[in-house]
């Protein structure tokens, strides 16, 4: 019996050593290839802003990188999260446990990102969050395994709301989507409006995916507020803006402030309906020559101009692959440390950097939708009114509730 125990212990210890020597040899890309999982809403409300075209942006980054990292192949698998945190967390769990996925890219609905990064927390798998809005993803929900890249609700409120208040929009009526993201955005807006001397005079909370906004617009009109703030997203925002136009809010002197508006939404509305709307964005395809050149290549592959999320997916994948190449490892802890040590200078951001809470800090842009006369093509939609420096845009670390911030 004692003999057997010793034999067993020897076997275990020697196996452990074998593992250790394998690592020391530098074969640190696990399973002999780098595996990336693309998880996004591929068929629902958020399909156009990330979706299949986001997977295309991911593949562009891999091709531009040369298709291999440290001589190993890079494979991509993708799944539709159906905007469900349950579907997302079981997919990510399966990816980690059976498919040995090294990095999860995409991550759109905030609830999906929070659930997925919880599963990744403590594993060797890295998460790159690009589609989500909630600033809590790098605040109370931060993990050492993920980075939030493109934007969040903090600069959305900071950029748009403070600009509108500065132009004299002192009283606000909020139309808020009744779920986590809407509430987060509403509270960020309230903070910005009140600290700039404005006031929230009323509001409604509507269920997600409402078709008819006429009742809410009528209530907004009756409130007499200077500004109608839309703390919703996607189809809800598009329908709110259409209805606001129909009920003549602008003619009556009210301003509509859409706090989260993607290029794909504005494209759906068209310059005629959306003209003059101010919004905050993390990136715009026509902001400079480098962005344009990338957007042209994206357009050739997809037939659409990229949203900020598409650009963020490309940029973050590129930075990640550089990290794997430089460290020779695909472990989340190693790559993330490299990503945080190295500045991001590409078509997406200049001088961007990753903070300890996982927030990628970069400049944000306050944009205004062009009038039909100014717009030269159906994707020529924004003029950049102001560049908001990254350190001013995002939540300062001094206010952070993230456990990684000391």
């Amino acid at each position: 019996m004692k003999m057997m125990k010793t034999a067993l212990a020897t076997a275990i210890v020697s196996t452990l050593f074998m593992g250790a020597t394998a690592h020391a040899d530098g074969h640190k890309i696990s399973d002999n290839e780098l595996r990336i999982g693309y998880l996004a809403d591929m068929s629902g409300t958020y399909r156009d802003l990330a979706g299949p075209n986001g997977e295309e942006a991911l593949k562009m980054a891999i091709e531009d990188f040369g298709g291999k990292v440290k001589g190993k192949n890079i494979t991509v698998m993708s799944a539709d999260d159906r905007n469900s945190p349950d579907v997302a967390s079981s997919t990510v769990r399966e990816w980690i446990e059976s498919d040995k996925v090294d990095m999860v890219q995409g991550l759109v609905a905030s609830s999906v990102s929070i659930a997925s990064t919880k599963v990744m927390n403590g594993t060797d798998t890295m998460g790159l969050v690009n589609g989500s809005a909630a600033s809590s993803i790098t605040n109370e929900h931060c993990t050492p395994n993920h980075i939030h890249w493109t934007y969040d609700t903090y600069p959305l409120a900071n950029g748009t709301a403070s600009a509108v208040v500065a132009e004299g929009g002192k009283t606000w009526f909020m139309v808020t989507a009744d779920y986590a993201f809407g509430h987060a955005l509403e509270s960020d807006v309230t903070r910005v409006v009140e600290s700039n001397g404005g006031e929230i005079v009323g509001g409604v909370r509507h269920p997600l995916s409402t078709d008819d906004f006429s009742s809410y617009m009528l209530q907004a009109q009756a409130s007499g507020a200077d500004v109608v703030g839309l703390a919703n997203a996607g189809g809800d925002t598009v329908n709110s803006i259409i209805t606001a136009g129909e009920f003549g809010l602008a003619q009556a002197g009210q301003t509509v402030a859409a706090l989260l508006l993607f290029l794909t939404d504005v494209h759906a509305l068209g310059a005629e309906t959306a003209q003059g709307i101010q919004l905050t964005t993390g990136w715009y395809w026509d902001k400079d020559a480098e962005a344009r050149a990338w957007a042209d290549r994206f357009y050739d592959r997809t037939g659409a101009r990229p949203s900020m999320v598409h650009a963020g997916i490309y940029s973050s994948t590129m930075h990640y692959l550089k990290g794997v190449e430089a460290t020779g490892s695909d472990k989340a802890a190693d790559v993330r440390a490299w990503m945080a040590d190295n500045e991001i200078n590409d078509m997406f951001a200049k001088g961007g950097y990753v903070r300890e809470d996982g927030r990628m800090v970069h400049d944000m842009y306050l944009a205004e939708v062009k009038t039909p006369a100014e717009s030269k093509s159906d994707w020529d939609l924004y003029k950049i009114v102001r560049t908001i420096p990254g350190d001013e845009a995002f939540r300062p670390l001094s206010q952070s509730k993230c456990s990684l911030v000391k």
Partner: protein
Amino acid sequence: MTMIFGVPAAAFYGQLLLGLINGAFYALLSLGLAVIFGLLKIINFAHGAQYMLGAFAAYLLLETLGINYWVALFLAPIIVGALGVVIERFLLRRITHIDHIYGLLLTFGLALVIQGTFTNWFGVSGSRYPVPEALQGGINLGFMYLPIYRAWIVAVALVVCFAVWFLIEKTKLGGYLRAGTENSALMQAFGVNVPLLVTLTYGFGVGLAALGGVLAAPVYSVSPDMGSNLLIVVFAVVVIGGMGSIVGAILTGLMMGIVEGLTKVYYPEASSVVIFLVMIIVLLVRPSGLFGKGT
């Protein structure tokens, strides 16, 4: 200022009117469902997708052929209705002899296929369809600003609802239809081509859905998922009114529009569930629906 239940009277009337407008719209859509169920006993889950097809037909007619709203108002329901005829003739007819649930599953599957295909082609962000020039602008009613187009929706919906009710309940053709579904063998013995009547009825019901889609195109974003949310609400309306009752569908549609409209003022968070609450209560108290003929 006069107040009604804590809301200024003017705002209250405004919301009441808006509820009526949405109600007229629900009535139009549930009418098509009621006609199809009442006469064919098919639970048409593709109704939302067919409504969406109507809106897309109008949009594509305008974008590709430059055909305007007024023509599309007739043409789109005919095109989509013809598609309905094809669906009835080649798919639904094969399963008429088995349980209704198969019709439900078939049309539900069709709806998913149609919606998925359109999502693939057009994306989900949707497209804008302009309000026709003659119906732009609005009237100030004193208590609210009423866009002319919304008034137009109510007018069309009410006229169509009345005409359909009259056609089915008061004319000889309607009589044939009702008799044909009651006892098809006997009617065929009298020389009436019942299968043709059934096919045309389904096509007509689908055409009504498409008409709803054309009417909705200028006020909502034309997108592949525009029908899926609405479908469930409209089904609830039909269940509350009594499956297959045409008068029930129309009156319940109007009523539910108002109930939902007022909920949006007093407790907006519940606006997407209030109709289903009513449905549950009605099913408990009167399972055959408010206007149904007891089973």
